[in-house]
């Protein structure tokens, strides 16, 4: 990589809140700019270049016609960073996958779509819509920065790692661990449900710190600590199933039920004594 790596920002279907979070870092961003060359960033600058080392990509893929642009970015970049929940998981709009695409298009565009006879290309390009997916569904991704939106500190940390050529290991504890470190009152003790026990940390438990619950925007941890999660839930008379539905907000495509079932199966094999004869975790 060149002395000063060339960085380019791109985005697909999203709210651009993660790029805005980067812009809101303030003075440290000015420092970071001394160590990188931002060569393309449509939202912030007019300079443009097709040559770059690091591509930071926000947003989900929802239209097949957007895929070639994403693939071209991958071809050009040495490192692709997926920025935020839309890019890493599909984002909140992933829930639109639960509905019939034509029904959604009729809802929004009404007669104009009906008159087009369901066509969504050529003159009717405005109606194109497909399955919502994270960018990893289309291209290999080197680093994922989770969150809706991202945590600005994590962005700076990731850039530092890339700049010195160190592999970045994303946080892989539960949000509960950050709640405990900060000594926040458990959301369950407040009588509410929370996705903290199974959600990847790295946000410093920002939502629970402000008296809300975890909505799971950073996705499920790689290896969910089922026992810990079960303990928290059992204490409050709940089962894992009760919270998995909430996971649909961000992780519809990640199939949390399937992931949990697989984790349970592995645990059942490794530590059968935990299960007794009839108990089920999920």
């Amino acid at each position, binding site marked *: 990589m060149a002395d000063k790596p060339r960085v380019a920002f791109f985005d697909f*279907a999203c709210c651009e809140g993660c790029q*805005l979070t980067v*812009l809101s870092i303030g003075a440290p961003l000015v420092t970071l700019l001394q160590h990188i060359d931002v060569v393309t960033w*449509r939202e912030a600058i007019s300079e443009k270049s097709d040559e770059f080392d690091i591509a930071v990509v926000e947003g989900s893929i929802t239209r097949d016609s957007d895929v070639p642009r994403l693939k071209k970015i991958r071809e050009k970049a040495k490192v692709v960073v997926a920025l935020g929940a839309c890019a890493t998981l599909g984002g909140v709009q992933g829930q639109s996958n*639960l509905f019939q695409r034509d029904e*959604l298009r009729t809802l929004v565009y009404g007669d104009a779509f009906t008159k087009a006879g369901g066509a969504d290309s050529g003159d009717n390009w405005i109606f194109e819509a497909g399955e919502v997916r994270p960018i990893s569904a289309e291209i290999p991704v080197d680093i994922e920065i989770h969150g809706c939106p991202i945590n600005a500190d994590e962005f700076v940390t990731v850039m530092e790692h890339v700049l010195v050529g160190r592999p970045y290991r994303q946080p892989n504890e539960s949000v509960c661990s950050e709640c405990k470190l900060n000594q926040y009152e458990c959301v369950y003790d407040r009588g509410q449900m929370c996705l903290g026990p199974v959600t990847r940390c790295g946000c410093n438990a920002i939502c629970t710190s*402000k008296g*809300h619950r975890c909505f799971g925007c950073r996705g499920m941890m790689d290896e969910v600590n089922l026992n810990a999660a079960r303990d928290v839930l059992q204490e409050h008379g709940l089962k894992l199933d009760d919270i998995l539905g909430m996971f649909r907000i961000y992780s519809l495509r990640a199939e949390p039920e399937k992931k949990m079932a697989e984790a349970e199966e592995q645990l059942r094999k490794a530590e059968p004594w935990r299960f007794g004869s009839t108990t089920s975790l999920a």
Partner: protein
Amino acid sequence: MEIRVDHVTRVEGHGNILASLEDGRLKQAFFQVVEANRFFEGFLRGRDWEEVSHLATRICGICAVSHCYASLQATEAAMGIKVSEQTKLLRRLTMNAEQISSHALHAYFLAAPDYLRLQSVLPLVKDSPETVLRAFRLKKTGYDLGEVVLGRHTHPVAAIPGGFTLMPKLSEIEVMRERLVGLRPDLEATLELFLKLEAPAFERETEYVSLRHPDHYAWLGGEIVSSDGASVAAENYRDALQEYVVTHSTAKHAKWNRDAYRVGALSRMNNNWQQLRPEAQEVMKALGLKPPVHNPFLNTAAQVVELVHCVEDSISACAQILNEGLQEEELEITPRPGQGVGVVEAPRGLLVHDYTYDERGRLTKANCIIPTGMNYGNLDREMQALLPQVADQPKEEVQRLLEMLVRAYDPCISCSVH
């Protein structure tokens, strides 16, 4: 002359300029919106009333606070939830915060480089670091003010139906009050900068639409008014704001009394300037703005006026909070079926959310009308009016002016498509 700009830079979202002149006469000119639809109105259906604002705020990364409050107000109107004066004050404060953050971003980072004939603020990092740091200070102070009250500016955490999950600490409000007071020299320097930036000479009278509130410069609630004289109550927004589909935009356009209207800082200033803080009215005069202002490029100048208004109003709001203190509120809400409308003035203009809930408190119907969507029709017509007037200029200059015009609207494109 053929002009095509794919993915206009220094705007939020993806849009193209397509314009052509034949023998100095207009052939076509429009802003093509190519952003993907995320179908928020579709997937909000079925969601629980407590989750809706969490999702709706994610329509937009810049005006997340506005979407949050439009959403909460719609839910509150649907369920007959009343909020306290304290909640209204904190909401007003954080609406100010969003305008400060958003206007600073637009005026300095997105719009100003055009006037300085720069590609971006990046050259200024080296040549005039104080200007860039000032821009960041303004933006970050708005952002941090939102964070103190809401837990996070993009996307808010603490705002929920009926009020807030937790009150901010008074010590944090005091810190923010001091930082806001500390912005006054930055506002003076901003005025000096914008006095030097001359907007292109171009005028086009149009219909200016905004909220109007009897008591103050309207951000939250009030009636929807037009400079053509008409007004409607928020719940009757459908009588005024008529959306329609065009073949060159994934976002819908809108009209009211004419074939297009304009929303945003310029419309608010034109309609409600008498309710601006005296300090902001002074800046308005200093910038030579005499409402009604018909030069579309001066929307950015109107944002500078609102910056001053919002900083001063926030200082007052912080002082009031420090004086009265903050009480945690018990929010006990029983969801009930109904329909309700929430209206706010987002940084880019009037924003409407309209929800219907069933007896379990699940959302059954949602309609969101976004300021940038409302502006597209007016932008197209303005491009068509501007183009023949500048036909004798070199192509690069014409393109620069068209891009400047798009940016003067401060479009929030992904938000407009949602």
